[in-house]
């Protein structure tokens, strides 16, 4: 997709980055101690920390990924919103206060509070590193996606810009500046998403997304002896046809020396224009038959029918929030669904007319009913995803460390509630932003991640610039938090606690900053390497690994007296290995390797339903087998014994 770059977008973006850097300079002068670097001195106000939680949590996956997924797959994308928020219930009711009570700087501190075990220090540090790196990759990929329309720069430039700024932020001031960056960004994201939603509701639905929206051609087809032999429009010269997956017939034509692709309609009476990218033998890509620079590759997504009070209308006018959802049920939406035509080295996105009812209930992405052709494994995959989303949040190291930035357990609890309210409100908005993007002709079929920002562009360059700058700051803030978490795992958990390197407070901070620098460089490299990879898929992987590796240990430490250090360490190792291995052998990964999905040895994409119970079983069995070591506990923080 070719985008026009706006000077306003650049100015607002530069102003944002300058503010963030200025904040870092300001707090850098105040950060001299390890407590200041890793935990902001433990004196952040709970309200600020709560919004900063929201800032940490509403990463590229939430704003860019979920909005994009809803735009393309309707309510199924909203399932992520529901699951992500439900995860905070676990955090609030079970994890928040004990984590605050047990830990100092990192999640490892809390797990190890009873034991002083080298095995826990090592495995928990590795787990923090693995989960955070998996979480970092999609953020960096998202940053690259954002700069393309925002600044007109290539993908790799976005990754390098984010990486460099974040290394600077984290290596100068640590958790304090990260917290304030997250606070500002979290608050702005929620405010401007609300404004964008008001624009969407005020706009209502229309059959004509804009005067620049492409008019898709529909032409007659000539079929002889069940074979397509031509078109009824002499301007379009028939060239060839392909049938894909037995159900879809695509037709290639030529008009004025330029190729077009059409899909044969369901009743075989007409041909409907599709978007397409063809890869030539020399590797050059043609977008709708022309070079990319011709800008003939359109943004898409529109309605083909709107019914209000039993009457077909062209537009609805402004709608209330509930009216918006109920009116959508009486519409037809034209989505653009991807199909590969390997024999023609072409990818097409054909017009897929969808009943509005199907956009506001599950089923377009996750096949659940028999009538939709769901297999038992499809259902297991759905349960596994919902389980990982529910249990993953309270096991994410970069979220857990935020409990150490406040002064008390009460403050930890209150900041979690502020976070739940802010995040919950935002997630309700995602449904409107996603559905709004699906029908206003803004979707870039090459990158679903840009649906939210591009919808803002539909309403004006000003709000687009601000939303894009906030989205960029979203990535900055989340990456900052992740790098603080990983630098803590390396410098505090591994170097200081595991290797027992004797360091004074200043050396600890220096080690943390050096670790942040190293992880930042790694993140840049991975962000460039994983270009084009699905952001939500990688975040889902991070949630699965976190829920499998960390949550059983946290819960059993808090609620089962017989838990031992060995049990925790082996559970973490089992959780990491089982979840990562199962994902590497999953259908989606097999497709990415260029192999058949059906050949994948593990039939579902989300491993949580196997890896979480496995980690629990290992924890219980190893703990029971190592009870004699339980006597080595140095301090007993068990809840039942605190009465």
């Amino acid at each position, binding site marked *: 997709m070719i985008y026009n770059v706006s000077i306003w977008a650049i100015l607002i973006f530069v102003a944002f980055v300058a503010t963030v850097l200025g904040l870092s300079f300001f707090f850098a002068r105040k950060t001299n101690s390890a407590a200041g670097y890793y*935990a902001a001195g433990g004196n952040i106000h709970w309200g600020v920390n709560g919004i900063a939680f929201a800032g940490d949590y509403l990463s590229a996956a939430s704003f860019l990924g979920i909005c994009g997924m809803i735009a393309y797959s309707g309510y199924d994308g909203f399932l992520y919103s529901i699951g992500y928020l439900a995860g905070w219930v676990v955090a609030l009711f079970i994890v928040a206060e004990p984590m605050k009570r047990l830990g100092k700087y990192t999640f490892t501190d809390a797990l190890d509070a009873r034991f002083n075990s080298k095995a826990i220090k090592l495995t928990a540090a590795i787990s923090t590193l693995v989960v955070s790196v998996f979480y970092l990759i999609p953020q960096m990929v998202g940053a690259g996606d954002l700069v393309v329309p925002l600044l007109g720069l290539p993908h790799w430039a976005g990754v390098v810009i984010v990486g460099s700024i974040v290394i600077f932020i984290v290596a100068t001031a640590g958790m304090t500046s990260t917290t304030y960056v997250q606070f500002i960004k979290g608050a702005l994201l929620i405010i401007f998403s609300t404004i964008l939603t008001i624009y969407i509701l005020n706009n209502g639905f229309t059959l004509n997304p804009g005067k620049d929206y492409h008019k898709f051609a529909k032409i007659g087809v000539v079929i002889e002896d069940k074979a397509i032999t031509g078109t009824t429009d002499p301007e379009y010269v028939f060239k060839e046809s392909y049938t894909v997956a037995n159900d879809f017939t695509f037709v290639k034509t030529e008009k004025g020396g330029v190729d077009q692709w059409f899909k044969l309609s369901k009743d075989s009476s007409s041909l409907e224009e599709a978007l397409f990218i063809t890869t030539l033998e020399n590797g050059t890509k043609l977008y709708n038959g022309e070079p990319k620079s011709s800008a003939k590759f359109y943004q898409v997504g529109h309605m083909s029918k709107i019914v209000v009070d039993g009457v077909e209308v062209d537009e609805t006018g402004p709608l209330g929030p509930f009216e918006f*959802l109920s009116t959508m049920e009486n519409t037809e939406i034209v989505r653009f669904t991807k199909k590969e035509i390997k024999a023609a080295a072409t990818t097409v996105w054909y017009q897929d007319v969808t009943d509005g009812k199907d956009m506001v209930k599950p089923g377009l992405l996750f096949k659940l009913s028999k009538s939709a052709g769901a297999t038992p494994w499809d259902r297991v995959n759905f349960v596994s995803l919902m389980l990982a989303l529910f249990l993953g949040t309270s096991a994410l190291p970069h979220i857990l460390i935020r409990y150490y930035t406040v002064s008390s357990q009460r403050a930890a609890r209150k900041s979690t509630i502020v976070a739940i309210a802010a995040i*919950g409100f935002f997630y309700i908005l995602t449904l409107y932003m996603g559905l709004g993007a699906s029908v206003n002709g803004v979707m870039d079929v090459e990158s679903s991640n840009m649906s939210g920002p591009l919808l803002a562009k539909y309403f004006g360059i000003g709000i687009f610039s601000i939303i894009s700058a906030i989205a960029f700051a979203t990535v900055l803030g989340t990456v900052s938090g992740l790098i603080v978490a990983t630098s803590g795992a390396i410098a505090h958990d591994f170097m200081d606690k595991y290797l027992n390197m004797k360091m004074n407070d200043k050396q600890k901070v220096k080690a943390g900053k050096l670790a942040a620098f190293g992880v930042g460089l790694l993140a840049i490299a991975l962000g460039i390497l994983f270009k084009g990879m699905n952001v939500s898929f990688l975040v889902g992987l991070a949630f699965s690994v976190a829920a499998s590796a960390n949550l059983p240990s946290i819960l059993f430490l808090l609620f089962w007296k017989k838990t031992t250090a060995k049990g925790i360490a082996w559970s973490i190792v089992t959780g990491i290995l089982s979840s990562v291995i199962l994902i590497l052998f999953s259908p989606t990964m097999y497709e990415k390797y260029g192999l058949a999905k059906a050949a994948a040895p593990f039939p579902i994409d989300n491993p949580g339903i196997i890896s979480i119970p496995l980690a629990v079983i290992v924890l219980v069995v190893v703990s029971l087998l190592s009870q004699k070591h339980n006597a080595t506990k140095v301090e007993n923080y068990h809840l039942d014994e605190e009465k």
Partner: protein
Amino acid sequence: MHGPAAKLSKDNATSKKTRLGVILFLFYTLVYGGFVLIGLVNPEIMGLHVIGAQNLAIVYGFGLIVLAIIMGFIYNAICTRMENRLNK
């Protein structure tokens, strides 16, 4: 060794708060589990209108989000009262 970054005072309400947290967590898990179960067993009913012109998917989905927020406020109010009473 380990210890909180900020010095914490003794909290006599810990065990009561923990029990309350577990009860509320189990209640929410049941409601969340119900949503997943409907998707699993009878996804078609997600499209049925239950309140006005809103279908079950919208009502249940929004309901789960709003319920989490309301339960959070209730939990905080009860915990704060317990802390004030037991930590005098």
